[in-house]
């Protein structure tokens, strides 16, 4: 099946007539929140199945429950009392033999007051089929059109080819046994073979009864036949009881497993929260200690710095004083200090040791030197000047160092400030991380007060329940195997009796019915085995593609038919535990896509894959690869994606990546962007921009 076009008129956010054209291969439609993406997905659902999804209630509603709400607000606003407003969605599609189908659903309401509408109970459906060879057309209406649609787009398969990615619970439910069975049964049409098997065993039972009820000439043989038949019937009945018991135990195990998963999830969540809270506490303590450090630094430096600040500006005055002193010293206006011992030494040696001239006793030089003797006042004066000079030097040095010390203080203080800011960012990030795990209305104190021991006990009890059911299942399997062997032996004996029967027609009928029953059973077993193997192969291919950038994942995916589960295993075939949510969803998508693809190839019927936000729940790394994989898998895919151009979240798929993909991927022939026009709620309508 290939959808060529969808026409949407006055339906939900679509005002007037809007057309999307599609080709074989992928079509990508992007739009930000509230631009009509999901309404487009609703349009497909409405035209095919008369339903649209109410996001706020997370439920599908039929047209009669939607009433006037299903019609575009602007179209309603523009209508006048007494007039009728109509909405319609049409799709044009072709089947594998090129026959054309034009399907239209319409709904109308009549304005009877300002805000009152006379609403029709049901929508009207019409389907026009054009034969590709004869070009003859046939139009079917309502129930007849629905009947025709049943074989083209069976509703039970709709959730797989009309894939609603945002409804995560629907995807995740594939984890349980019944959903696994349903997906496999629905998509692979294996039910055809199961049904055939049911019919052959029913007919065999009837024929067997006829054979047994017709008395054989040989009385002993007849007696044996009857007894063995009763034993076989009893064993078959017991085996069926055991089968049922096994199935029920499986269901109970599934329930216990769901409880265990929930308890385990709850415990993990709380443990995760507790770790984050401990980290937050630690970071807050660090922040507090840094605050104290900064305060201490300020306190320690404050007095010193303030004291020094008082001298700020005196630098030049002191510098002037020093220059004045040095200048006078150079000009020898300040006499050099001469020690008394040195004068005595010069008089004794009769030589002036300042200028080097001889100063014999009695000479003028000698007298001049003698003049300095005992001149302590001069000595002290010079000493004082020198001391003043030294003080001035020290003062200058210290005043000069004021700026560098302030700088050191500033640097230290600034570094602490940076550390505090960094800690604040970390605390905020941790608090946000915490809120992704727990709802905003749960306080931190509530988490801190959780009784972990109790949570652990609950989880362990649930695990014990699971193990109990697992053990019970093993016991039943063992019992079943034993009964099967017994049944086999009895059947062999019975077959030898059948051989000896003289009732030819009944006997041959029974033999043929048994052969057919066995062929169909064998055929079913072989088909199922091949199906599971093909599905496993394709699931692996798709899962690997989707998670190729995830280095944490390695190994294979196991499609475990016995336990009706799909899970990743490591190289030693051990089940991998604790894979993250994004990978779990990738696995579910890969599994559904694999069944759909294997089934499509086998039955040569190709459903278009129409998907609304298929990757919204995936992590950043898996997003683009998931889209690319979907593009590769399906003959036709119509993928609606959220455009997070304005989102800062690094985990969101970046807008430019998807736009680059649209431009550069040659398989993508059509791409649209949706925008919302209109200021008020009752004027808003989707605007379609063709990107490619």
């Amino acid at each position, binding site marked *: 099946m290939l959808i060529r076009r969808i026409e949407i008129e006055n339906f939900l956010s679509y005002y007037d007539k809007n057309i999307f054209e599609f080709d074989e291969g992928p079509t990508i439609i992007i739009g930000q929140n509230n631009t009509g993406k999901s309404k487009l997905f609703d349009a497909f659902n409405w035209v095919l199945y008369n339903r649209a999804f109410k996001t706020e209630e997370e439920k599908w509603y039929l047209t009669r429950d939607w009433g006037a709400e299903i019609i575009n607000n602007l179209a309603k606003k523009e209508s006048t009392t007494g007039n009728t407003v109509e909405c319609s969605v049409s799709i044009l599609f072709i089947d594998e033999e090129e026959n054309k189908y034009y399907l239209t659903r319409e709904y109308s309401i009549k304005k009877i007051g300002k805000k009152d509408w006379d609403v029709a109970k049901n929508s009207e459906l019409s389907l026009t089929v054009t034969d590709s060879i004869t070009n003859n057309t046939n139009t079917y209406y309502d129930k007849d059109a629905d009947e025709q649609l049943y074989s083209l787009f069976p509703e039970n398969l709709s959730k797989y080819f009309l894939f609603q990615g945002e409804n995560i619970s629907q995807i995740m439910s594939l984890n349980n046994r019944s959903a696994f069975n349903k997906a496999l049964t629905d998509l692979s049409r294996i039910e055809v073979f199961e*049904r055939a098997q049911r019919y052959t065993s029913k007919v065999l039972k009837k024929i067997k009864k006829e054979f047994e009820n017709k008395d054989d000439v040989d009385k002993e043989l007849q007696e044996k036949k009857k007894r063995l038949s009763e034993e076989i019937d009893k064993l078959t009945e017991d085996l069926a009881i055991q089968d049922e018991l096994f199935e029920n135990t499986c269901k109970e195990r599934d329930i216990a497993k769901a409880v265990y998963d929930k308890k385990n999830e709850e415990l993990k969540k709380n443990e995760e929260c507790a770790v984050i809270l401990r980290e937050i506490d630690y970071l807050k303590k660090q922040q507090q200690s840094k605050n104290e450090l900064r305060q201490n630094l300020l306190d320690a430096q404050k007095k010193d710095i303030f004291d020094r600040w008082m001298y700020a500006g005196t630098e030049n005055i002191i510098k002037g004083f020093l220059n004045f002193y040095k200048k006078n010293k150079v000009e020898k206006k300040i006499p050099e200090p001469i020690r008394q011992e040195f004068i005595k030494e010069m008089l004794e040696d009769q030589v002036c040791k300042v200028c080097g001239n001889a100063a014999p006793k009695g000479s003028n030089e000698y007298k001049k030197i003698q003049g300095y003797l005992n001149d302590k006042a001069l000595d002290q004066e010079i000493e004082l000047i020198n001391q003043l000079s030294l003080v001035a030097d020290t003062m200058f040095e210290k005043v000069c160092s004021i700026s560098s010390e302030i700088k050191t203080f500033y640097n230290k203080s600034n570094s602490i400030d940076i550390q505090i800011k960094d800690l604040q960012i970390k605390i905020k990030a941790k608090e946000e991380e915490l809120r992704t795990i727990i709802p905003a209305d749960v306080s931190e104190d509530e988490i801190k007060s959780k009784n972990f021991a109790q949570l652990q006990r609950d989880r362990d009890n649930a695990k014990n329940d699971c193990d109990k059911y697992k053990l019970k299942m093993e016991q039943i399997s063992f019992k079943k195997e034993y009964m099967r062997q017994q049944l086999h032996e009895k059947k062999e004996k019975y077959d030898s009796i059948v051989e000896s029967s003289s009732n030819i027609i009944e006997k041959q009928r029974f033999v043929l019915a048994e*052969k057919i029953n066995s*062929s169909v059973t064998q*055929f079913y077993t072989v088909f199922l085995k091949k199906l599971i193997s093909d599905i496993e192969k394709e699931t692996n291919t798709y899962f690997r593609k989707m998670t190729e950038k995830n280095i944490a994942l390695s190994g294979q995916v196991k499609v475990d038919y016995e336990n009706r589960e799909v899970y990743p295993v490591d190289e030693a075939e051990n089940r991998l535990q604790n894979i993250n949510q994004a990978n779990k969803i990738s696995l579910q998508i890969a599994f559904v896509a694999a069944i759909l693809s294997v089934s499509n190839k086998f039955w040569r019927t190709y459903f278009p894959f129409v998907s609304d936000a298929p990757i919204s729940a995936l992590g950043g790394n898996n997003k683009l690869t998931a889209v690319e994989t979907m593009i590769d898998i399906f003959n036709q895919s119509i993928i609606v994606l959220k455009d997070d151009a304005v989102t800062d979240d690094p985990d969101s798929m970046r807008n430019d990546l998807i736009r680059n993909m649209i431009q550069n991927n040659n398989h993508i022939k059509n791409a649209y962007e949706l925008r919302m026009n209109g200021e008020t709620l009752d004027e808003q309508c989707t605007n379609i921009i063709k990107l490619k």
Partner: protein
Amino acid sequence: MKNTEVKHQIENMLQDLKKQDKQQYNIVLSLLTEVFVEYNTGKTRNVDKKLYEMIDAEVRFKTQKS
């Protein structure tokens, strides 16, 4: 899904049976085709009754022949 296509697929799957036992092959092919049509249209087709009749007719034909 077109019935002709389905029949073609089922025929492919039953190739081995066709070589082994033509009598069984004919019945299983008709049975699976009937079941498929019933599954595809959602309308009951009394398949069990038809199967019984096919087996009975086959046996009677064979018995008469011998």
